[in-house]
């Protein structure tokens, strides 16, 4: 069993809303292993995006963080800004959802790709520029030489996202965090970008943490999956297991809401709604909507161990 590249231990993120501290992420733990794609899935607002940002401690000061994110023997959450600047963009990189607004409109594409190279690898701007050209080729953008001098508004959405990927990969990071990279793109472009990411990952042997709400994407690229609900991590499993043997009641219900191409059946929405962040239940956060809920669920369950871990009283072996 290889040791994990990154260990997230009991991560919690809280915000002050109307003078009360509310936990948006409720003490979650997971590992990231080398050379894998881990997908973090969940509905909008379940906390997956802020979890991703906390892996680089990229959250605004207004957020209070608890727990640890251990990378290369150090806890990222307790590192100083200066040290973090050295890691961000070079050993861990992140790409975001909206390529139009995520690129600086007044700087050229070439400059934005070259920047991490100059900052972290100490390259000169002209060397970095040639390397940027190679990167554009890597992400399969045609006419690379011309693109270097263009501005973001001159490129299409799919191309901009590839530029983002090029920026992320520039320094050959060990982990690439991708926050819903294809959500804002057309379906056909989505498939291309995902394929690109997958190929690059296999080529360079890096790990990808992909945030998504789309189970289709998960089925496509994931090696392992982590399911989140309302700030809780409810299940982690290898992708095949997740789809064939979903364990947590939420996961099971979730899979029933996804239409499948091979069979015709009824779509079953999940009863109830996600509780607002100010009034989260104390125990298992899914309990109010869970068909298998019972008394024990008033206390938060622990995540079980092993490659297929679940956080549910109903699944714990009764002693």
């Amino acid at each position, binding site marked *: 069993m290889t040791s994990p590249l990154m260990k997230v231990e009991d991560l919690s993120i809280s915000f002050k809303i109307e003078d009360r501290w509310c936990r948006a992420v409720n003490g979650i733990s997971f590992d990231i292993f080398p050379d894998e794609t881990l997908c973090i899935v969940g509905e909008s607002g379940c906390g997956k995006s802020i979890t991703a940002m906390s892996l*680089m401690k*990229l959250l605004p000061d207004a957020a209070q963080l608890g727990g640890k994110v251990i990378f290369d023997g150090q806890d990222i959450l307790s590192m100083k*800004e*200066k040290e*973090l*600047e*050295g*890691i*961000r*963009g*070079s050993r861990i*990189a*992140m790409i*975001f959802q*909206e390529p139009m*607004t*995520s*690129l*600086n*409109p*007044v*700087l050229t594409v070439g400059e934005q790709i070259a*920047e*991490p190279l100059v*900052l*972290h690898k100490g390259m000169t701007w002209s060397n970095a520029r040639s390397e940027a050209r190679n990167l554009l080729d890597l992400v399969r953008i045609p006419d690379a030489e011309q693109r270097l001098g263009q*501005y973001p*508004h001159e490129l299409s959405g799919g191309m901009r996202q590839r530029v*983002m990927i090029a*920026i992320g990969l520039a320094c050959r990071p060990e982990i690439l965090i991708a926050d819903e990279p294809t959500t804002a793109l057309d379906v056909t472009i989505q498939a291309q970008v995902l394929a690109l990411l997958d190929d690059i990952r296999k080529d360079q042997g890096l790990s990808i943490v992909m945030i998504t709400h789309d189970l289709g994407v998960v089925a496509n690229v994931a090696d392992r999956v982590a399911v989140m609900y309302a700030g809780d991590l409810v299940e982690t499993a290898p992708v095949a297991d997740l789809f064939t043997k979903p364990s947590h009641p939420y996961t099971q219900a979730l899979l029933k809401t996804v239409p499948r191409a091979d069979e015709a059946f009824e779509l079953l929405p999940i009863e109830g709604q996600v509780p607002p962040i100010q009034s989260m239940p104390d125990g298992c956060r899914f309990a109010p909507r869970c068909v298998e809920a019972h008394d024990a669920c008033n206390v938060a369950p622990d995540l079980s161990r092993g490659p297929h871990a679940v956080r549910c009283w109903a699944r714990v072996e009764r002693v």
Partner: protein
Amino acid sequence: MIVFVMIRVAPGDPALAILGDNASQEALDAFRDRMGLNDSMLVQFGRFLSDLAQGSLGTSMVSGKPVVTSVMEVLPYTLELALGAIFFGIIIGLPLGIISALWRNGWFDYFLRVVSLLGLSFPAFLTAILLILWLSIEWRIFPVISSPTGGPIDRIYNLILPAFSLGVIMVAYIMRTARSAMLDVLGEDYIRTARAKGAPVRRLILHHALRNALIPIVTVVGLYFGLLIGNAVLTEIIFNRPGLGKLIVLSLNQRDYTTLQGLMVISAFLIVIVNLLTDICYALVDPRVKLK
């Protein structure tokens, strides 16, 4: 644009004929005759247009000098005053605005916001008078009567106080715009991306954010240029400097309407040029804008 300007300005003339001067009736008649005011409006306007086409703005009613000459004599002084004010505005206002955005809601920010509001509200003559009293008389740093003659060093030295006095307003406006522009920009996604790239804070602000924030700042400078010219009039009077301001007041007192008219045209023309310059600056700063 300028065509409308001319149409707008010409009607000032019949008012002149209606109101008349303080001079005696005979003098008035002779005067009007000489100036061609007794001709019909159309003829007057036609003459104005033809004069303009030849690059002339008519002759001064008082001194007989061509208006263009009088204006051109003093224009550079006013321009240098205005530029000085903009200079102060940027040098002081921009960094303060940026700092204010960074220390948002801190005591410094609050303090600066109040100060900038004060700076906006100060009438130009009060600033000028207070500055003269404190810096010229009490502390004797700058001369009281600012004369723009002499060598360049002398000229600049004399320019500092009036330009600063005029610049207080610009400082206030630029500071506020810089603050809100920076706040807007810092909240944008691309700043988050730059942070995720590991860019150090200083580079984030100066390189990534500032270039985007400059856009609204350029707008502000162009927008308030008109205000600047107007206030320059007052500043020139108080500091006793030659310039458009003095000319305006002089022509007003002497009822020299041709000069006034010419001044109006020049002012409008200036504004048009400033707008053009602003547009050019936009194209320089924002690559999304294309020059026509």
